[in-house]
């Protein structure tokens, strides 16, 4: 990036915060839109875009990539949307516990058929 200009603009989106509010969440935590706000016009376009993307459950990192925003800016936005009750962010599960035999076989099969 060239100079602090773009960063200052981005931090306007987050009111200068570098950390999301509430419980921490993982880079691949699944975000799901719960509802649209009563007054969509009052949200930043980026917030609305997140809500649109996450109508399909979407991992945090993918949200950042789709919005072309830095990850921690994205996370501040997601934390705000969660506080407003507009999105749910899955509580992280340790991968080893989340992967049962069926998922393990699906992953192996999926990799081999690439």
């Amino acid at each position, binding site marked *: 990036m060239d100079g602090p200009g773009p960063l200052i603009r981005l*931090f306007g989106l987050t009111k200068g915060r570098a950390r999301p509010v509430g419980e921490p969440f*993982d*880079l691949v935590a*699944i975000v799901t839109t719960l509802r649209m706000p009563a007054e969509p016009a009052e949200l930043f376009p980026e917030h609305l875009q997140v809500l649109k993307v996450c109508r399909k459950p979407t991992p945090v990192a993918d949200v950042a990539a789709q919005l072309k925003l*830095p990850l921690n800016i994205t996370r501040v936005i997601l934390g705000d949307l969660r506080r407003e009750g507009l999105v749910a962010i899955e509580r992280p599960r340790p991968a080893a516990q989340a992967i049962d035999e069926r998922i393990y076989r*699906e992953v192996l099969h999926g990799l081999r058929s*690439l």
Partner: protein
Amino acid sequence: MDFAASSQGVAPATPALAIKILIAGGFGVGKTTLVGTISEIRPLHTEELMSERSIGVDDTSGVEGKVTTTVALDFGRITIREGLWLYLFGTPGQDRFWFMWDELAVGALGAVVLADTRRLQDCFPAVDYFEQRGIPFVVGVNCFDGARRHEPAKIRKALGIAPQIPIILCDVRVKESVKEVLTTLVTYAVKGVPVDPQMAPYPAPYPAQ
């Protein structure tokens, strides 16, 4: 707006799951190439802003605020099916971005440590990191053009890693090779044992192109 009238969403039969895998190793060892070879999309690029935790590293005098620079982070995605993905995160190669590793490593299924036999020591920090945190990892020895073939046993000795940790000779430019590295890691991380030796992908069946 088109989504205002959309349904409130139906909970899927099984919850969506994104599995995180880290690709580590020294600078220039082929992390980004590996991700690009296997990812169904061009590696997604995002940038992480340096936070106050690391701010002491940089000269920030005269700059307002807590954030002054960014760390590029490339990651790839493999969709297994709707609601089940693998995400591959290339770890930042520079030492001053180590603070990001903790963030990346939380909840990860495991890691691939890429090694270059010409600069084997470059992967020592990654090996130490994953050993200390008990994160399952495999070592992928990237066989570049002209790189001498090394026996896994010698590499294991040089790295000082436990006998059960799989070492795979690979070519990160070749999809089949990367698939074997990842299936070996997934099996090792889930089952905690090496794959059947009959199935082990070494010696590497993929000659350098």
